[in-house]
């Protein structure tokens, strides 16, 4: 079942001589429960792609359909609500709220949507992430790996249709990176969660379902379960 479709996406920055075509006619789709990775060198357009899909940036052309709804066919306010309810984000620099503890950071997106958190579900997520005995700690009292795990919990709690992860292991060491990847894979399988991840670390992609490469704004699908040495 397709959860996301990108049709002919184009993004151009600047004009005239300073014009940069960050994305050129990108088209692909993601199925529900798929864990896909987008690889590419810096400047290839991967972050632009993620930002457009996450409705954080507006494309110059093309369509993005999430669960059949045209993201840029809606008004700004509708898109904000849609993004809040359907897309989860994991950033390279975690972006946790320093004044809230682990549990509060995780349930924060629910509170933003005026929803009552189901504490049974929160307990389960804390257990899966291995953070039960840290639930009242502040982000400043956690290691990098633990903070990223909190960020993952925060992305999972609303059960969004799509999770976008921008270099989730960029600030972590190798061991923590592998742990985070395992958690993301487990979330993808257990909760049938669709995840789109950007990375430039080829060692991480052995457990993803699908790999796509962006190079100079053009996207190529490298298929599934591929172990290529990427330069």
């Amino acid at each position: 079942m397709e959860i996301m479709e990108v049709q002919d996406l184009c993004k151009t920055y600047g004009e005239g001589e300073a014009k940069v075509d960050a994305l050129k006619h990108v088209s692909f789709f993601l199925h529900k429960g798929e864990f896909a990775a987008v690889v590419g060198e810096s400047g290839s357009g991967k972050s632009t792609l993620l930002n457009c899909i996450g409705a954080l940036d507006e494309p110059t052309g093309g369509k993005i359909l999430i669960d059949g709804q045209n993201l840029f066919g809606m008004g700004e306010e509708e898109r904000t609500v849609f993004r809040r309810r359907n897309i989860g984000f994991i950033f390279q620099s975690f972006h946790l709220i320093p004044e809230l503890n682990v549990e509060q950071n995780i349930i924060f997106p629910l509170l933003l949507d005026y929803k009552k958190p189901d504490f049974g579900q929160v307990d389960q997520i804390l257990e899966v992430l291995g953070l039960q005995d840290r639930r009242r700690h502040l982000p400043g009292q956690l290691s990098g790996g633990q903070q990223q795990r909190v960020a993952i919990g925060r992305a999972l709690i609303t059960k969004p249709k799509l999770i976008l992860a921008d270099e989730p292991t960029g600030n972590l060491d190798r061991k923590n990176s592998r742990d985070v990847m395992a958690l993301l894979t487990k979330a993808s399988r257990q909760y049938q969660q669709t995840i789109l991840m950007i990375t430039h670390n080829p060692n991480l992609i052995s457990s993803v379902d699908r790999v796509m490469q962006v190079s100079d704004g053009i996207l190529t699908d490298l298929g599934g379960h591929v172990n290529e040495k990427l330069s």
Partner: protein
Amino acid sequence: MCVLHDRQSRQYVTCVIGIVGSFVLVILFLAWFHGKETQSLLFERERTMSSSLMEQGISPAMIASAIKNAESTREGAALLKKIGHTETASVRIFPNIYRSVRAFAGIAAGMAALPAIALAVMSIHFLWKREKMYRQAESIISQFSEGNFERHLPQNAEGSIYQLFSAVEELAVALRAQSRKEQQMKAFLKDTISDISHQLKTPLAALHMYTEIIAEEPGHKEIVERFSEKTMQSLERIEQLVQALLKVSRIDAGSIVFHKEWHSALALIESAAADLSVRAQKEGKKLIMEGDPAQMLLCDGSWTREAVANLIKNALDHTDEGGVVTVSWECSPAVFRMTVSDDGCGIAEEDIYHVFKRFYRSKRDGGRQGIGLGLPLAKSIVEGQDGILSVSSTPGEGTVFTITFLSNL
């Protein structure tokens, strides 16, 4: 207040407050108007009385003190009662009062009617808009039950009704996914049955042939012996095949329950490697185990042992003499990880995607004996226990299989 999240409700409540506010203003105005009217009636009365008294020659001073008098006596009240000017008299007898009352009533009704009408119109408008939305939702939900998901329920706004619609749509999608899953199960069963019959065809045909040959030459001792042995081999192969196939199918169908208990990782791996270490020695290959001997793992012992054994066997199958197969394990706060790595021929790029598919034999395997179910079975066992089995390989250098379980510490 959660009622105010919904924009339509918020607009409605704001308008109601506005209308009620204007109503209050209307009443304040009417109170002031009433005061003015009363004042005007009173002064009119005093004017007419003064005029009459002056005409009759009463001194102005007496009239003024009469007007200023604020106390009423019994005699005074009795006088008024005698001429019929009491509260019980109908208002109509006093034409100017009556006129004033009618004017007041007219203005009051007119001014109060406006907010009242506005309130009624607004309420009906609000309810009608909601009604329209409910009807629209109903038609979209009926389309969902017919499997048509083209239109979506309105969900992208604040308010509980939109969250309700969102939940309904999720429910519809979940139901649809479930029906798809059922269809997939049917297809899966069909494939399994077809796999079984396909795989059995060849050894059964061979058996048939051998038995025919034996039947034709029952006296020929050498032929009987030779083909009896071949028959035995075929039967063994069929038995292995059927058992392996049933195992994989049962696990994939979810009909196997894994009983998780705490096992020593080292003991588990040692028992998995027990038979294979003999073979390794015979073939001149090394089998190494690395990891914390005290490490415990929560899993189904016998099934996991089988999965690990399959991986080790696969590693031995693909290494040459003098090769090394290493089984190592480590535990971090979030995961328990076990790897089976070898320095053998590796897996080619075009094969690696298919390596966990049933009966997949790479062209490079070169006629090796084996059913092609070892890896799929290992994957099913690991995934059935909520673990992950992944592979990475460099052709010519070696392969690493990784089993990952989330720690439940």
